[in-house]
């Protein structure tokens, strides 16, 4: 599949848009289905990423770990109700090799608390490796590189 193939571009854009919608519209149970299994999901900071340090803030290596994250949010963890609004910027396909596309995009995420207080919560890059050999496309790897290494209060909902 060529990088210029409209079907490839369309499938990648759909996956990335669906990811943000799942989170922002509180359809978190559908979020793990966007990943292959096994997979790699990591939220980290630019500082850790550039220093080659492996530990970030949130990590999953399987669809099961993603499901557990959602179950825990729904049933176990206590925090003030809130939502995000993701705005995902230019999506660039860097390469396609052996059915895996390397894709980079940018995002900003606002956090809206249940009482209406709104703030800029996070900005960063998505570094994706996407399975494009079969449809629908799935994330084999999504590294969320946050521009800042400071998190306000807590990170409950995935970014």
């Amino acid at each position, binding site marked *: 599949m060529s990088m210029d193939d409209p079907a490839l571009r369309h499938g990648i854009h759909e996956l990335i848009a669906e990811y943000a919608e799942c989170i922002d519209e509180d359809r978190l149970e559908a979020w793990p289905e966007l990943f292959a299994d096994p997979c790699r999901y990591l939220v980290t900071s630019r500082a850790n990423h550039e220093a080659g340090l492996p530990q970030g803030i949130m990590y999953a290596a399987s669809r099961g770990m993603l499901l557990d994250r959602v179950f825990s949010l729904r049933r176990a963890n206590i925090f003030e109700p809130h939502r995000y609004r993701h705005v995902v910027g230019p999506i660039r396909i860097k390469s396609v090799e052996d059915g895996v596309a390397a894709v980079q995009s940018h995002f900003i995420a606002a956090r809206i608390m249940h009482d209406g207080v709104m703030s800029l919560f996070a900005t960063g890059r998505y570094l994706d490796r996407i399975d494009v050999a079969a449809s629908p496309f799935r994330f084999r790897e999504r590294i969320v590189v946050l521009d800042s290494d400071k998190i306000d209060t*807590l*990170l409950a909902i995935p970014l």
Partner: protein
Amino acid sequence: MSLSGISAESPVESTIAWPSNGISEVPFRLYTDPAQYQREQERLFRGPTWNYLCLAVEVANPGDYVATTVGETAVIVVRGADGAINAFVNRCAHRGNLLCLERNGSSKEFSCIYHGWTYDLTGQLTGVAFEHGVKRQGGMPPEFRKEEHRLLRLRTAELGGLVFGTFSDATPDLETYLGADVTRGLLRVMNRTPRLLGRSTQVMPNNWKLYFENVKDTYHASILHLFLTTFRINRLSMPGGIYINHEGGNHYSYAKLDYAAEDADYQAARLRADSEFRLQDNSVVESVDEYGDQISVQILTVFPGMVLQQVRNTIAVRVVRPRGVDKAELEWIHLGFDTDDDAMTERRLRQGNLIGAAGYISMEDGCVGGFVQRALHYNDDGAGLVMMGGHEAESQTFRASEAAIRGFWKHYRSLMGE
């Protein structure tokens, strides 16, 4: 000498009334009063206490430096040419400018960007731009001596690969300060050369003390943090205990785990039908008894702002840094060791989901202090109760206790002169 500028004593005494001479009733105003906050900076963080500075491996070679803060005071930590670790206030002796603007790096000297004054790795002033003027006009007066000026110095000490600093000459040596029990607890965890795995900072909307008390609070763990009970993990806990040092501010609590029984329990759980109440992927809690003593949780604090944790196979230093009366930063410094193989590193990373800003058993600690702070805002009359397990701050063989919080207030009242 230009050593003045950071006073050890505040002339303003506290007007906050304690309900008794004891340590089991704590005035709420201590979390909201700006003057109290300033006194804490002087008497605790710049007083006779040891504060975490960095890992020794971060300043492995001469010239390697880290810029950090002790309380709110900016500090540089640097390995000197003689191999000693030096620390000094990050403030040029000339006009008080921040000398070092990078978080870390390596340098032969420190040079101020403002007027080019330079300092060697011990903090001694070595160069003044245009010291003798330009074409013999201007320049420093004849009585000025560079050797009489240096950066305000901290004493440093190293234990278990962790570097500490203190502003006060009155601080006892580090191991005496920690006490024998807490020293033993620190060296138990830091028994190999640490390797930095990553770091992040949580910004908390509350007074720094609310977090430090939370860490010492062994009472709340199974009540606020529901992850382990929801997923039926760790029901096989064996007894633990709490050690508190004489002054009260340093402690460690621990709990043991029957690792083999837990593993058997996981195997049995796989067969159960109620799959929604078990983890889909157990690797977030699958741990090994890496210390060979069955202790699965050890939480250790060093007054006033450092935490060393072992939660299963996650090892982390946490540093609490006050940032105003109702704001604090919590830095998480995640560690492995030089002996770790790839499987051990992966184990630590997966269990890393338990801790930090997104931690299954820690995220609530990031918001609960803010809830308290909000309740106290304009409503800070009265005092909180810290009476679980009695009124004293003694070591205990059970964990449903607030003894370590009382220990914090014992040390606090002593140093604050309250």
